[in-house]
């Protein structure tokens, strides 16, 4: 009797385990289906951008559309490059991006060092005040900065694109946190050896914080690449125009009967550097981004 009870229970258990397994496979399949569907939605605009940029205008206007270009038209890219004057825009953006990143890094390193290692009166208060300014929307600053740069005579120059944004409280915060993680014993040991603060900063702290500095560099460069509002306001002349503004200016119409293949080629060219950065430096972007909540 007891024997048969046992086998019955075992049978029962086996049954539920098969049942559970079936359910598990089913729900796992559902999860994959959901993820694939969402991934498709996420990727579709990129796919559409690339294939549209390779079609002739006649083929683009076909309805229903072709899912892959019948004749690959690479000439769209050449046309986009000249129509939007992308070469000049690219150089301008790289120049502004590189110079502002370099200067910004130096300022951020000095400031973060002072807040992390040096002692001075009102340190905590000053740091709290700086953090508080992060809450204020940028537009509030822009209104006055616009008048300031006009009275400084900086309109339509590289200076106006670089200087007002050199100090970023967020970067200072990020680097200070990193500096604080470096054990103080190292600093005291260096002091005993008679190493100056300056030398210690560049020889020890900066190399140890390289990942954070790389994150900052990438975010700053991406910021220059994607900036739109401020450059449009203060430097929208041929000589200093940035790439996003150039793209928007060259293709003002978004609806109606536009030469979309060329427009999509220009969009693809503007997106390509970002894509490359993404492929090779994703790790640094992700670690910077997850702590920021702001784009660029």
């Amino acid at each position, binding site marked *: 009797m007891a024997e048969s009870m046992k086998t019955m229970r075992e049978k029962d258990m086996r049954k539920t385990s098969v049942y559970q397994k079936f359910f598990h496979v089913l729900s796992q399949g559902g999860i994959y289906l959901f993820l694939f569907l969402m991934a498709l939605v996420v990727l579709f605009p990129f796919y559409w951008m690339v294939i549209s940029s390779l079609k002739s205008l006649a083929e683009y206007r076909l309805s229903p559309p072709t899912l892959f270009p019948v004749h690959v038209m690479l000439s769209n890219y050449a046309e986009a490059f000249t129509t939007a004057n992308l070469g000049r825009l690219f150089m301008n953006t790289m120049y502004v991006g590189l110079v502002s990143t370099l200067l910004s890094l130096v300022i951020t390193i000095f400031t973060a060092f002072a807040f992390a290692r040096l*002692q001075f009166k009102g340190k905590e208060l000053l740091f709290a005040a700086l953090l508080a300014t992060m809450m204020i929307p940028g*537009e509030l600053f822009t209104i006055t900065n616009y008048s*300031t740069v006009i009275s400084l005579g900086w309109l339509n120059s590289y200076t106006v694109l670089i200087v007002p944004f050199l100090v970023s409280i967020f970067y200072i915060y990020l680097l200070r946190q990193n500096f604080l993680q470096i054990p103080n014993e190292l600093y005291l040991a260096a002091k005993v050896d008679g190493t100056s603060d300056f030398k210690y900063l560049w020889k020890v702290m900066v190399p140890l914080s390289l990942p954070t500095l790389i994150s900052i560099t990438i975010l700053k460069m991406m910021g220059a690449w994607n900036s739109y509002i401020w450059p449009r306001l203060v430097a929208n002349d041929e000589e200093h125009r940035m790439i996003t503004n150039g793209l928007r200016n060259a293709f003002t119409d978004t609806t109606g009967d536009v030469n979309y293949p060329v427009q999509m080629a220009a969009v693809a060219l503007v997106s390509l550097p970002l894509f490359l950065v993404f492929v090779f430096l994703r790790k640094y972007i992700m670690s910077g*981004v997850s702590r920021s909540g702001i784009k660029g």
Partner: protein
Amino acid sequence: MVESKQQWKAWLYLAPAIVLLLIFTVWPIINTVSMAFLEGYSGLTKAGGDVTFKIGLGNFIHVVGHPDFLQAMKNTILLCLITVPVSTILALLIAVALNAIGPLRKALQTIFFLPYVTNSIAIGMVFAAMFNVIGSIGTRRPVIVSYGIVNDIIRLISGNSDPKNFINFINTGSSYEMNMLVMVIYIVWNALPFKILVLLGGLQSINKQYYDAAKVDSAPRWRVLTRITVPLLSPMIAYVVITGFIGGFKEYTSIVGIFGENMGPVHDAGRLNTMVGLIYDSLELDNQGGASAAALILFGIILVVTLINLQVSKKRVHY
């Protein structure tokens, strides 16, 4: 002696940042706030001669009473109220799903992060191309050259090949609701990567013991999600909701991406203008008083919404 030397040195390290902050952060706060309370303040008028501006709330009253402001306010709030919950829930589902699978997880994670590293103007133009209809619309017998890929898909699914069977999303004569729908889709698409990244990071730090306990009790997946995952993830959820609202109230470039600087379809420019767009419009009209007042209102709204969010999460967030 050593103490004062340290002090002096610290300020030397801080000097470049302090100088720049004084010019481009501290002065703007003082100046923008004071301009907001000088009625009808304008840089041009001031430069023109010896004028004094009355101190008062005139700018605020003028801004709030302006029909453009009400429209911008409506657009901004609607976009916020729709896109933040939709993108948060979608991101949560995707993050939980990603956390539940083994193979292909890294690859999918990479795909979902891709929209983050894009230029919102550039990809906005791609979305516009996808929703655009080429042809004569709004006439009695519309001649359509190309419906655009989104309408093509809708036509394919509905199986109705009637030439009139298409939705006018963004072209001349399109409705406000359809314009908003396109904006919502684009903004959610854009907002997902950051939210997924943060939520997935949070999920991975949840102690596995909770799930083992749920397994022993053979709790169904749905209950595990609502009773374990969401409460334990609530600090992260609160974080993405708050940053989502802050970003949502500053929405501007994504609309420029799709509709251009028209900020609306061809027949109704400015229809989709937002608070930030309004501030720049007043700035370009040299109405600094109005722009400042609008910026302060925006700041006030963001502050209030953030405080409400913090209050709610204080009650709801499980630390």
